């Protein structure tokens, strides 16, 4: 499998806090990778460093054969690395369609504003937001805004998509709907990194799980392997959850 994103010895420091500690990680094309870890483990910092919001204090990041560490976020987005925000970030006074069209117009490389709008409507249909296309983005529900984030990221025509807690705050049926969407996105050949607190989602959707703890990668493997890893159990899952998962996996 060809590696799409390779991190080598990536560290990031906030003053005296080492938020990321020498991370080595390679993501292959077509994977759905679950990135989990307790609060403050460095998950969002990792996304911020990869997407260019923070410049890594040390290490190198290669995306699609090119070094991207130290590039501005807009340059990285234009190369096909998209991310959603944990706290959704729509343009509130643009319509839903205009939000997505703006994404298509810049990193999505649409040739003109009408072309961008056309592309936007396709992505909105894919994400089930077409009926709301002409409403202001600020009028959407939380679940709607999360789907808008997805539609915006898709409009960037990414090769790799970081989904930072797209399921947080959603109810069960909304989560199921989001999961279907994520699988459908993966089928288009887009590599996905799922940052999640909901273990059920991670276990169901991921082909591979990596675990961050205190800024270090402590486990990397299939969902079943990771759940069985004693370090992961100690740091994150807790013994009773692990036992439950074991029962399910081996039943």
């Amino acid at each position, binding site marked *: 499998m060809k590696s799409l994103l390779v991190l080598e010895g990536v560290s990031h420091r906030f003053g005296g806090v080492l938020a990321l500690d020498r991370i080595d990680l390679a993501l292959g094309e077509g994977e759905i990778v679950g990135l989990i870890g307790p609060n403050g483990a460095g998950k969002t910092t990792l996304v911020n460093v990869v997407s260019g919001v923070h410049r890594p204090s040390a290490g190198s990041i290669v995306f699609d054969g090119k070094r991207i560490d130290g590039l501005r*976020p*807009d340059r990285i*987005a*234009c190369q096909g690395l998209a991310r959603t*925000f944990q706290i959704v970030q729509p343009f509130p006074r643009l319509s839903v369609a205009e939000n997505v069209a*703006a994404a298509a117009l*810049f990193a999505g490389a649409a040739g003109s*504003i009408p072309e961008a709008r056309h592309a936007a409507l396709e992505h909105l249909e894919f994400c089930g937001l077409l009926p709301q296309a002409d409403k202001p983005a600020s009028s959407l529900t939380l679940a709607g805004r999360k789907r808008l984030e997805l539609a915006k990221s898709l409009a960037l025509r990414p090769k790799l998509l970081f989904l930072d807690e797209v399921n947080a705050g959603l109810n069960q049926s909304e989560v199921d709907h989001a999961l279907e969407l994520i699988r459908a996105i993966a089928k288009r050949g887009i590599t996905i990194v799922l940052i999640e607190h909901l273990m059920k989602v991670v276990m169901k959707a991921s082909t591979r799980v990596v675990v961050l703890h205190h800024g270090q990668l402590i486990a990397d493997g299939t969902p079943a392997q990771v759940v069985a890893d004693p370090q992961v159990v100690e740091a994150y899952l807790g013994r009773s959850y692990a036992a439950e998962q074991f029962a399910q996996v081996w039943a």
Partner: protein
Amino acid sequence: MNTRLITGLLVAVAAVLALMFTADNYVLRLATTVGMYAALAWAWNLIGGYAGYPSFATAAFFGLGAYAAGVFQSFGLPFALAWPLAGLLVAAFAGMLGRAILHLRGHYFAIASLVIADVLRELTNVWTDVTGGGMGLNLPLLSLGGVDGQTQFYFLAMLLMAALALLISWWVDRSRLGVALRCIEQNEDAAQVIGIDTRSSKVAVFMLSGLVAGATGAVYASWVTYIDPTDVYDVSLSVKPIVMALIGGVGTLMGPLVGAFVFLGLEELLWRNVLEFHAGLLGLLVVALVLFLPGGVRDLRRYNVWNGLIRLAPWKRRTT
């Protein structure tokens, strides 16, 4: 849409011709001021409205444009060359300034942009050999057929500046740059994540703003034939365009024009009568606008004035 545009243009041209040949010099002078105000309000609206960066650099651009044109003409350049050159010089200056201060956000940017006019004023004061320092600078009088000819000429010249400002705003309003700026105005971090080169977009529109304000300053210098540092770098030249844009609607295409008319009307009717306190009234007006009409005069539709009066009536009090 196209018929509306053509009708608008025809009405504008008819109004201009009617003014030129029927109005007396006082009215023509007022109309020239409207043109200047509209150009400056449009210039501010580019950076302050579309990009959402509260710039107080309009006076700096205006003054630099006035002085650049004045100095060029004192070296023997004709006005027709001096005006556009001054505009371009100010645009280049705005480009460098933008690279230095447009990474600041909100109040920080406002303060940084506010001091630029003061710095330029001091530099102009000190550089006596070229600028005349505090004594000011006299510009060549154009021989254009007496007082009436002069008035008509500068009326047209200022309208040309307003037209230039409108044309640039119209282009920005519907271009990729306009989309980028609206995204930056609403959420700059998210704008960057969807691939918008935020810095270049902001610097580009700041340069356009500088071009318009600088060229307008250049025309103003020739119009009044004498400029001095306190006059052309006056902070009110930064504040007034903001008030006009607020009146007409920030970030809209025609808002600045509406604002320029309303503002000049207020200035003529009200402030000439309360000379002592007109700066205070300006402040009160800004506060009232921001509090009650954040979208400008078009927000008046939202207030049903008659119902409001009834609600305030004493016999209706304490009923709820």
